[in-house]
Every structure is written in C-alpha cells, then in structure tokens.
C-alpha cells in the first residue's frame, strides 16, 4: 500500500473495473428501491417512461427528482422547479470540493465526466477510498457509472412495473440509511471527526425542524466543519 509508485498505476483496466464494481454494489442495492419508487411516482404524475429516463440520466440526483415530480403534478412552474432543484443539489458543491483534493493529476475531460456522477453515496464511497490512498479516478468512475446505470434502469422499470413490487419488501427501504451509518463510521478517523459529526447531526436536526426544505444539510455541515476547524487551530496554537 505504501509503495513509492502510485498503486493506482499498477492496476490495469480489468482490476479497476472489478474493484469499482465491488465498491459500487451496496450503492446499487440502495438505489434500486428508490429508483423504482421514483419511477412509480413519476408515472403517477403523468411522466412518460422516456421522460423518466431522460430525467434520471440528465439529473441523477434522487431527492431533487422526487421533489420535481411532485411539483410537476401540482402544476408548479418550470422556473420554480429548477430553482428548487438547484437549492436541493447545492450540497454537491461541498462534496466536489472535498473530492478535488485527491484529483490533482486528472485531465479536465475526466474531471468533467467524474463530476456527472457525484452523488451523496458515490461521494462517500469514493472519498473513503481516496483518503486511504488506494483509489484512482478510474475506479471512482466505475463506481459513479455503475450507480448511474442502477439508478436509470430502476427508475425506468418503476415507471413501467413498479406498482407490482410490494412496498417495503426485505427492508430494502433501509439500504441507504444503513450504508450512511457505515460510511459515517469510516469517516470517524479521530476525535475531531467525531466532534464534527456530533455537531453536524445535532445542528441538522434543529435546522430541519425550523427551516423547510433541505438547506439544513449544507448549513449544518459548513457550521460543524468551520467550528471544529476553529477549535482545532485554537488548541494547536
């Protein structure tokens, strides 16, 4: 692991793909029920399967797609749906910033492709592996695109047949929550990370109760990271 040559270089394409796939399958497992549910809802809101597919390909951000579909079904205007989407997905700005640290030697073309697949889940999986120093952008791209395929296929399937799948079967609705629990533990690499997580969690709960929408995620994260950085710098002065 601690060779002077970047371990990433030693991997050929096939290994990259296999390692990417083995990192991606929990994400896929979590996306399938959500994609199906999204497809069902979108179909009920009057979207054609082609529109569902187009949205899952071009947007690829679960919660904003749910919100957009419910806004469409209540007859909301295009501009207000797009502004809401922007607000809901602004958290990716933080995730991409955090990932950028590891992508110094990547071409702009690859970065642009990688940017497409930055979701809550792929971000957490890739960041964990990048920070262990045994991950390359190619493996990360496999994770992003495998997750993307699972998302697109399951949402289109939901648009056709989701209503036949029993809701809540196998506890699959809990897949992403369980995944976040484990990914959070991977991030708790020391006491400052634990303090950050505690502050972010408490502040997020409080903010989620008082401000509508999902801006609490970004606000609580920025607040927690800034506070802990302040504490850290003050203690080590």
């Amino acid at each position, binding site marked *: 692991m601690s060779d002077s040559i970047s371990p990433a270089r030693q991997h050929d394409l096939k290994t990259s793909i296999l390692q990417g796939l083995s990192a991606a399958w929990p994400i896929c*497992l979590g996306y399938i029920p959500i994609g199906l549910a999204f497809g069902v809802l979108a179909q009920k809101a009057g979207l*054609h399967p082609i*529109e569902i597919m*187009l*949205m899952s390909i*071009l947007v*690829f951000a679960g919660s904003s797609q749910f919100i957009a579909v419910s806004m469409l079904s209540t007859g909301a205007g*295009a501009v207000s*749906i*797009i502004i809401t*989407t922007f607000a809901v997905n602004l958290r*990716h*700005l933080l*995730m*991409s*910033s955090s*990932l*950028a*640290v590891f992508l*110094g030697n*990547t071409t*702009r073309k690859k*970065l642009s492709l*990688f*940017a*497409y697949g930055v979701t809550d889940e792929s971000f957490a999986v890739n*960041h*964990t592996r990048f*920070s262990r120093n045994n991950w390359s952008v190619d493996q990360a791209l496999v994770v992003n695109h495998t997750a993307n395929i699972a998302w697109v296929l399951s949402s289109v399937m939901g648009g056709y047949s989701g209503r036949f799948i029993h809701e809540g079967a*196998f*506890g699959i*609705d*809990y*897949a992403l*929550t*369980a*995944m*976040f*629990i*484990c990914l959070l533990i*991977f*991030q708790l690499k020391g006491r400052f990370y634990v303090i*950050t*997580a*505690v502050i*972010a*969690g408490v502040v*997020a709960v409080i903010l*989620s*109760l008082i401000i*509508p929408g999902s801006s*609490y*995620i970004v606000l*609580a994260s920025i607040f*927690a*990271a800034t506070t*802990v*950085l302040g504490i*850290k*710098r003050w203690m080590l002065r």
Partner: protein
Amino acid sequence: MDVTIIHQKVVWVILGMGLVTYVPRWFPLVLLSRRNLPQWLVEWLDLIPAAILSALLVPELVTSGMTRHISLWQPELWVALPTFIFALKTKSLGGTVVIGMALFWLAQSII
C-alpha cells in the same frame, strides 16, 4: 411507443434541472483540483465528509413527516443502533447494508 405524449414543458424542466445540478458538481473539481490549496482549506474540506454524512443521516433517524417533527419511536432510529455496532465491529459496507435491511424488515413486521 407513443412519443407524442412527451410534454415540452417537462423536457425544458429536465434540461434546466440537469444544468443546475451539473454545474455545482463540476465547478469545484475544475477550480480546486489543480491548485495548491491553503492548509486550513484542506483541513476544512477533510472534515466535510463526516459533517455531511451526519447531517444527512441523523435527521432521517430522529425526525419524520413532511413538515419535520421529532419522532423517537420509529424503527429507523432503533434499527440504527445495532446496525451502528455491527458497522463499527466489522467495517463491512456490504454486510452493514444487508444487516440493516434485515433488522428493519424484522422491526417493521413486528410493529
């Protein structure tokens, strides 16, 4: 397949959504990846994943409803405790997902 029922408005909405979602994903990668970032920013960004995962997760566990309210008696929270311990002991992402699902399924069938 009958494509004539695709609505023009929906297509514009989707294109707009795609654009405003892609730009925040793309901009920091291109802006930040080739620079030498100041040490404080690197440290700050290193804390962001723990913060963001916690901010995503905790409200899901302890609140519910469209206008959120505290809800401590939901299976989401109580299943999280054994799932958390399992994840801590095994550090297995796939295993945690499977255990979490199984426990949640069990909890839902009991309630």
